[in-house]
């Protein structure tokens, strides 16, 4: 049901763009006004969100230690899983952000016959997650060619890597297949695993369909309708140089693609997708396990009521003396 609502929402959005861009006067709206607005909302929204997180302090040093602490010199210390300094933290974060280290640990718990609980390998979520995020990044970088007059060598190299299979014309990009497959897998898993289905919200299905919509419309343009990419580049260059114009030769499917992307940009800072920035700020991962070596300061630490030794001794003086304990006041 929640999945269906999300699918319908994305289809409706696509339809709006399709119908809208078919009206000649609306092309400026879909090609220029909405993308600009979406981009501004994205940037401002993300900055606000990050500032909001940053404005709350980290009162305590609370890394989740997943390896041996640094203690006695002859005990092998786990530099990455329980980092004792900034370098270790950087390594830990790099593994987390680039390779999804924690997700790699995933296990499937089975209670099975009621006699033995077992823990099986469960790397599919990790693999699909990694495939999805990396292909998304590749695709994003490839698209930079539209915004730069002289396409830099780095982008050409990435394109070359991505199309090294040398199939079809235009050349087939592997990442296109990977993103479609991984997003589809992430969706199937969400409805296929009962527990994951149970915890899923519309907010979990919607971005999946939205990204799927963006990918499908892009693939459609590249391999099937063969959009006039020269005019698309004119539009993109116009946007980036603040001198926008919308060439008549751009097909309607492009506006569907661009509009869904704009929706993603607007949706991003308002949703769980902020995990992109949030992952860097997680105090259980980005702090060194050194709170015994170096005092961590809590900016809002305040004095509290305590029961002092003096009060304690007043309560128990006679009993203490009876038990032969030293007292401060006789």
């Amino acid at each position: 049901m929640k999945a269906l609502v999300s699918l319908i929402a994305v289809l409706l959005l696509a339809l709006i763009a399709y119908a809208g861009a078919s009206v000649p006067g609306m092309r400026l709206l879909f090609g220029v006004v909405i993308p600009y607005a979406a981009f501004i909302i994205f940037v401002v929204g993300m900055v606000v969100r990050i500032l909001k997180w940053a404005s709350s302090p980290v009162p305590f040093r609370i890394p989740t230690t997943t390896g041996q602490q640094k203690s006695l010199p002859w005990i092998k210390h786990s530099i990455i899983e329980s980092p004792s300094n900034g370098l270790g933290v950087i390594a830990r974060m790099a593994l987390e952000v680039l390779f999804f280290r924690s997700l790699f640990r995933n296990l499937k718990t089975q209670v099975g016959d009621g006699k033995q609980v077992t823990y099986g390998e469960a790397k599919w979520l990790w693999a699909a997650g990694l495939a999805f995020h990396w292909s998304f990044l590749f695709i994003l970088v490839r698209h930079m060619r539209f915004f730069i007059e002289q396409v830099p060598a780095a982008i050409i190299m990435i394109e070359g890597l991505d199309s090294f299979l040398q199939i079809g014309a235009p050349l087939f990009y592997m990442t296109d297949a990977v993103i479609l497959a991984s997003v589809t897998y992430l969706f199937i898993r969400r409805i296929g695993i009962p527990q994951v289905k149970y915890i899923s919200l519309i907010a979990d299905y919607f971005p999946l369909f939205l990204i799927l919509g963006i990918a499908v419309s892009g693939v459609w343009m590249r391999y099937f309708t063969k959009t006039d990419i020269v005019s698309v580049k004119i539009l993109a260059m116009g946007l980036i140089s603040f001198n926008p114009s919308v060439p008549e030769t751009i097909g309607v499917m492009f506006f569907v693609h661009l509009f869904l992307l704009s929706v993603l940009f607007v949706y991003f800072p308002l949703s769980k997708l902020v995990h992109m920035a949030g992952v860097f700020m997680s105090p259980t991962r980005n702090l060194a396990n050194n709170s015994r070596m170096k005092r961590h300061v809590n900016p809002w630490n305040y004095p509290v009521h305590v029961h002092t030794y003096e009060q304690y001794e007043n309560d128990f003086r006679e009993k203490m003396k009876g038990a032969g304990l030293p007292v401060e006041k006789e």
Partner: protein
Amino acid sequence: MAKLPKPEELSKIDLTPPKTDWMDTPVVFKEGMFCHGSKPKSLEIVDFPNPREWRPADADWKLPENWKEILLEGIADRLKKYRSFRLFMDICVRCGACADKCHFFIGTGDPKNMPVLRAELIRSVYRKEFTTAGRIFGKMAGARELTVDVLKEWWYYFYQCTECRRCSVFCPYGIDQAEITMIGRELLNLLGLNIEWIAGPVSNCYMKGNHLGLEPHTIIGNLEYMLDDIETVTGKRIKPTFNRKGAEILFVTPSGDLFADPGTYTAMGYLMLFEELGLDYTWSTYASEGGNFGFFTSNEMAKRLNSKIYAEAKRLGVKWILGGECGHMWRVLSQYMDTWNGPADFLEVPKSPITGTVFENAKSMKMVHVAEFTADLIKNNKLKLDPKRNDHLKVTWHDSCNVARGMGMLEEPRYVLKNVVNNFYEMPEDTIREKTFCCGSGTGLNASEDMDLRMKGGYPRANAVKFVAEHHGVNMLANVCAIDRATLKALMEYWVPSVGVCGLHELVANAMIMTGEKERTTDLRGEPLPSVQAKEEKA
């Protein structure tokens, strides 16, 4: 109290979620799954709000009229104070990696025990009250109104989480349900919604220095019994000191070990070890608690209780502090104490007077875990050990959650263990070290009225013990945690009756040859040593 079902029944677990959406599935308080509500007196002693008689099973919780306002202000306040809280409210993608990592979920099959859903209980209210999307789209955006039923759901499930952090190990963003539960419980405490098994020990600890409420003469009396037993076993009379000014080291350990077995055997182990070393140390009756049930209540309460350790160290003029075997105690000490009540600049960097080793890893907070201390002793050949005395034991090691995931002390106790026993077997690798399972009774849930919950929550731990018991004949579950020693005993009696429970230093003391001791015929529990048994069998 409902009768605890048999293990065969309890181990039939169905992980299939219910048909109705979780927001439309009202919370049902099941007998045996929750603790008694806090008593007014326990709250009054520490000036906590809304002290009154109440029962969790009652419809009317006698909340203050403006309860909702108090809670929402409480949430707003904590969003400002804790980046962790704000971040963890925003970034979860509900990938479900944490879902089947929680011992309470594995043991109950209740979907609200999946860490992600436990967090959603509070996140849904956060969305409604603190986010634009939640305000506009409501339920569509996963937002819901804060009602009395929601509040009850919070209470029920935040007291079905032991803050063990296992979920956090698997979360791709490091979202830590322990952090969310801690804040959830803090919020509940704003309305006087604690459990007595926590509130009682907290007020005891505040007034008398320890959770059990042992008064100074009782502490000494309890230790005297242990000293008698030590004399029976070793022929040596030990005379520890209390509240002694000018000692080099202050020793602080959980009070549970002064009260009931098998913890008392661990305490006897400390006494014997320190005696053998000739350590210049003192116990304190004022700072007579290493653990901190305040930590299961609120940040402020935890700090109030914790303050006694540094204050007493300062008053007695010791050089540094040695801490006993405990789990959550060490999360508090390693990640909170110095921040709350430091800097402890009146102390010196801990240095073992026996080996000269300087504990650089504790150079700011100035407190050393006794397992670190003993590992260093053994490495430097300062102890005469005869591990054969423990040959009647086949031992496995339980990593306590907080020590593993909130400190990273994994190898020190293993090193000690391997030197004092000959038969050591690890449990399956997905159930130890950073992936260790909770005893199921941590964070103050070790009461007697919630036995169903405890046995269910401890099921994954017990199951792994059962595995090594069946495959290697393991008969002893060793650990460095006072709550473990108290709770695993009941857990083993229920699930794996052939396995006993002990602390690390009980095994150390059994193996340690003391200067001038008589020939030992029994271990600390009064059971004949393997060598004696063998002789008897020959005869």
